[in-house]
């Protein structure tokens, strides 16, 4: 466990979700906003005749890559280096942060512009650099909004999806001097454009994430819609690209598969506006590629959970998830929320994130939309079993499971329990039946108790015919 792991405090998804749904209107609005994105994804994917073949190919490429990751990493390093890039290796978040800081401090750079990188969020890079005197500007509009609010992103593709335009208007009035009360998205985006252009022009270095790293060519590919990664890598002379080791793909041709899948799955666009391929630095500039492990190689060893390393961070599983849509990204308490986060987070620290695998109806919608065919709901179920095995289940659930196991083991006890439920529950006062222990009955009525058991009804029916 590394220092950033320890910084992750235990989250109770159910309690956090309860706070989110307390504002009923807002919870519905959030649900609908994400469902709209999910529908756009459906339209875009159904317009592609070979969509399912593409998903097969993407899953196959990723599985193949994971089976030869060391060889591809060596090939990538060799190719990238021969093109003039400098490749750095970091075992964990602390090493990653130290490498980025060293690159900046050795060159006296104090202003950094960043485009979206979930990896640097995972490593808590911003506070690390800010504590050392570096001004960090997140330049994706959604990320800039949450940065100005001192919040993490609530969604990996749509960082500010939890905010209303009026809230952003107030924020920009305070921070960027926009007109008071103005909340038109076009006006606010224009204000951010001016503000961010200034930051791009002043920056000493640009940091980006990496969508794909091609072993064959030694190149990294970065996808954005706004063009912020391109502004941040073409103005300042130093480009730092940070990638988890799982971003590797073997061949140049493989890019066709992933660029066809990514944006359609994420937002329903046929491709991102800018898909930029970096091979080596620009003349007179520098390209640093930081390859990070931070628990990924450990996950690779696990046959049950290794497929989730194939994730290309499109966010489709979040947009479709009935739990995510109704509980919001923050209820997961980890940088990658939703179904994929419910697998990745406990992999990092099972005790702290033990509630996440239960934040699912196991409906399987995530698995249906995943462009790389990760068996998401199966892995979520497997995590539940793992959490029980490790003794991490909270005691009320543990006790209930124990009681149920005994009742189901003895036929007579099972029948007695059924008889008691049918005879006794209808006689109990409502306050007792719908007490604190009955989580199911919080917003629902229990069905009326039947007069007889299924076994009795079946016997009676057979006797008659």
């Amino acid at each position: 466990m590394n220092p950033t792991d320890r910084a992750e405090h235990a989250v109770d998804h159910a309690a956090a979700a309860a706070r989110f749904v307390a504002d009923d209107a807002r919870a519905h609005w959030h649900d609908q906003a994400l469902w709209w994105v999910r529908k756009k994804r459906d339209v875009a994917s159904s317009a592609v005749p070979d969509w399912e073949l593409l998903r097969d190919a993407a899953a196959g490429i990723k599985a193949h890559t994971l089976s030869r990751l060391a060889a591809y990493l060596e090939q990538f390093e060799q190719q990238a280096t021969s093109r003039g890039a400098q490749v750095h290796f970091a075992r964990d978040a602390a090493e990653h942060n130290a490498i980025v800081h060293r690159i900046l401090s050795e060159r006296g750079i104090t202003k950094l512009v960043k485009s979206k990188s979930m990896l640097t969020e995972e490593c808590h890079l911003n506070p690390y650099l800010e504590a050392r005197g570096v001004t960090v500007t997140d330049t994706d509009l959604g990320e800039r909004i949450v940065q100005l609010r001192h919040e993490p992103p609530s969604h990996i593709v749509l960082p500010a999806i939890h905010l209303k335009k009026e809230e952003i208007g107030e924020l920009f009035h305070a921070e960027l001097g926009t007109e008071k009360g103005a909340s038109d998205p076009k006006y606010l985006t224009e204000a951010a454009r001016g503000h961010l252009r200034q930051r791009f022009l002043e920056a000493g270095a640009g940091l980006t994430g990496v969508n794909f790293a091609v072993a064959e060519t030694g190149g990294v590919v970065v996808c954005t819609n706004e063009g912020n990664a391109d502004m941040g890598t073409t103005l300042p002379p130093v480009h730092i690209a940070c990638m988890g080791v799982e971003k590797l793909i073997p061949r140049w041709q493989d890019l066709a598969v992933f660029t066809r899948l990514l944006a359609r799955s994420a937002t329903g666009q046929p491709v991102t506006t800018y898909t930029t391929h970096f091979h080596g630095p620009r003349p007179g500039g520098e390209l640093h590629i930081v390859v990070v492990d931070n628990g990924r190689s450990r996950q690779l060893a696990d046959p049950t959970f290794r497929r989730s390393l194939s994730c290309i961070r499109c966010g489709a599983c979040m947009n479709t998830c009935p739990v995510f849509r109704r509980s919001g990204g923050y209820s997961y308490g980890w940088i990658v929320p939703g179904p994929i986060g419910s697998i990745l987070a406990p992999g990092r620290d099972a005790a702290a994130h033990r509630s996440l695998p239960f934040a699912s109806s196991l409906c399987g919608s995530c698995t249906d939309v995943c462009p790389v065919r990760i068996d998401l709901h199966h892995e979520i179920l497997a995590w539940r079993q793992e959490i029980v095995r490790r003794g991490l289940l909270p005691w009320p659930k543990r006790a209930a499971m124990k009681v149920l196991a005994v009742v189901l083991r003895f036929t007579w006890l099972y029948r007695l329990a059924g008889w008691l439920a049918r005879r006794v529950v209808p006689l109990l006062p409502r306050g007792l039946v719908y007490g604190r222990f009955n989580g199911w009955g919080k917003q629902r009525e229990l069905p009326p108790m039947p007069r007889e058991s299924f076994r009795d009804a079946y016997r009676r029916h057979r006797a008659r015919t």
Partner: protein
Amino acid sequence: MPGREELLAVLRRNAPRETPPPDLSRLGVKYADPLEQYALSLKGVGGACLRAADLPAAERALAELPACREARRVVTLVPGLGQGNVDLASLSRPHLLEGLDLAILPGDLAVAENGAVWVDASRLHHRAVFVITQHLVLVVNAVDVVHDMHEAYARLQEQPIGYGLFISGPSKTADIEQALVIGAQGARSCTVVLVG
């Protein structure tokens, strides 16, 4: 580097049994009229497609566009097209391109399935020009419209790989309440001229 050796060793030790890479030859989409599909795709991502028989016709078509008519500072890297008055090579820093109204750049190929144009930006004296400009015009030969991304990457593999990008329409964002706003950080408009 101890981190490097250690990482490679762990990745080797923890690797699952090797699986073969998939065959990609069955993938792809073919359109009856790729040029028409290209124009449709580009419109869908907020761009505009113009067809011109030759460069003089392209020049006349561009002259109609408000973004071109009103442009004061212009870079053109397509000989014979547009009234360029900014010489990239004469600028000491890319930062001096801030305030550029229009860039007219050549594209190597255009992709029917998604409206994208491949720009080999390693040829640009200042790479920033394609994104810092307020308006962007890309010029592609009509014969270089390909059906899909598989065809595009296969074609690109034949040329030296440097710094290049697909541009599909103008810069955009929907980060404020999912409302689509064109002109986020890069070009506010993207016009693609297919010549021939």
